[in-house]
């Protein structure tokens, strides 16, 4: 502990190769969802539409970054015996801040995300990063790490939501893009491109998120073979 403390003092705050790696690693080699398998629950529930996925992604980036910074700043003061609870309290506080803010300024999203905002607390990414990184590193590096992991998570979330909303409803961010509307809709909503396309209801349901992520994992691992499960 003493040694690392000395080294830390020598290192100035800079943005070099190592720092860039902290930021980009979680986007690919160490992606929270497709590689570390953390934070799946919310990835499934909120990805029916781009809008909800976007709100969720921003919320997780916020919570992940700040929880990392706060924990890292307090890391020498946090007693080992109650480490877990202290970390959870920090996360829960940040999540409550997110909830209260959404309720005040984005009420529609708040209504739609409902209990899934609360579930950010148990989003294992946040907890996992606190335990694995923030407890042993300076706030600056921890911020980068939190940001990287939050964004790595958010990207997958948006990718899944993109596929599900486009093929499920033929919409993006709620705007009709492809496919004709069902018969009773004809007079009210214009069909745009590919009028023959029928929205695939399966894509809207929960299990489809599982399939989409499975395919994403397939593509990701085929493209980056060092991630393949050898066991």
């Amino acid at each position, binding site marked *: 502990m003493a040694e690392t403390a000395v080294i830390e003092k020598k290192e100035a705050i800079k943005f070099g190769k190592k720092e860039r790696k902290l930021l980009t690693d979680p986007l690919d080699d160490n992606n929270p969802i497709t590689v570390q398998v953390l934070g799946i629950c919310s990835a499934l529930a909120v990805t029916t539409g781009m809008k909800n996925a976007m709100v969720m992604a921003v919320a997780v980036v916020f919570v992940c970054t700040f929880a990392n910074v706060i924990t890292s700043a307090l890391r020498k003061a946090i007693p080992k015996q109650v480490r877990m609870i202290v970390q959870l309290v920090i996360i829960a506080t940040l999540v409550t801040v997110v909830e209260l803010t959404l309720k005040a300024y984005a009420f529609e999203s708040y209504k739609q995300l409902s209990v899934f905002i609360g579930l950010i607390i148990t989003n294992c990414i946040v907890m996992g990063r606190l335990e694995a990184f923030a407890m042993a590193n300076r706030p600056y590096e921890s911020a980068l790490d939190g940001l990287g992991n939050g964004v790595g998570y958010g990207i997958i979330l948006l990718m899944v939501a993109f596929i599900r909303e486009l093929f499920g409803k033929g919409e993006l961010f709620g705007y009709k893009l492809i496919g004709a509307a069902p018969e009773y809709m004809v007079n009210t909503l214009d069909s745009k491109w590919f009028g023959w396309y029928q929205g695939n209801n399966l894509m809207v349901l929960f299990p489809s998120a599982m*399939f989409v992520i499975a395919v994403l994992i397939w593509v990701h691992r*085929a493209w980056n073979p060092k991630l393949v499960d050898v066991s």
Partner: protein
Amino acid sequence: MGDLINIFIKSAFIENLALAYFLGMCSYLAVSKTVKTAFGLGLAVIFVLGITMPINWVINTWLLGENGVFQTDLTFLRFILFIAVIASMVQLVEMVVEKYSPSLYNSLGIFLPLITVNCAILGGSLFMVSKEYNFSEAVAFGLGGGFGWFLAIIAIAAIREKIKYSDVPAPMRGLGMAFLLTGMMGMAFMGLMGIDPAAF
């Protein structure tokens, strides 16, 4: 009583926390490689859900509610208190089990810390609040939800044990297949959706 059985069946099968809401997926996917470990984790989840649900109900109604001890709306502290209860209960259970039943501790012990961050537990408590259950309903919901989660993880572990011997494309091995399987199991469970639990 009939109502409680309804809620139990509903939360175990129709609104299965793992396969209908996909909660607790992290540990569900990580600890379902063999049936033996899955069994241990599943038991621990039933146990912790069964304990935390009534405690959180009491906290939410008597401490945080407008008709509670403080007569003010303190629901903004809900997340913190719920997660603190869950974390401390898990720790308490761990200590008690370690002291009085070392054999159970050996089979369950390593899973207990994992449960704190299992969203099925916190999710269960939050669902309980949004569904406005009363005390006994909350207990039934907790036990039923835990039982459903237990069934789900055993089922996928059994399938994964077998699928190890299949010829799966390399990038899909392990994790990829687990996702695909869970999705299919979820679809199968959706078949239970229209069932009226009152018919039992």
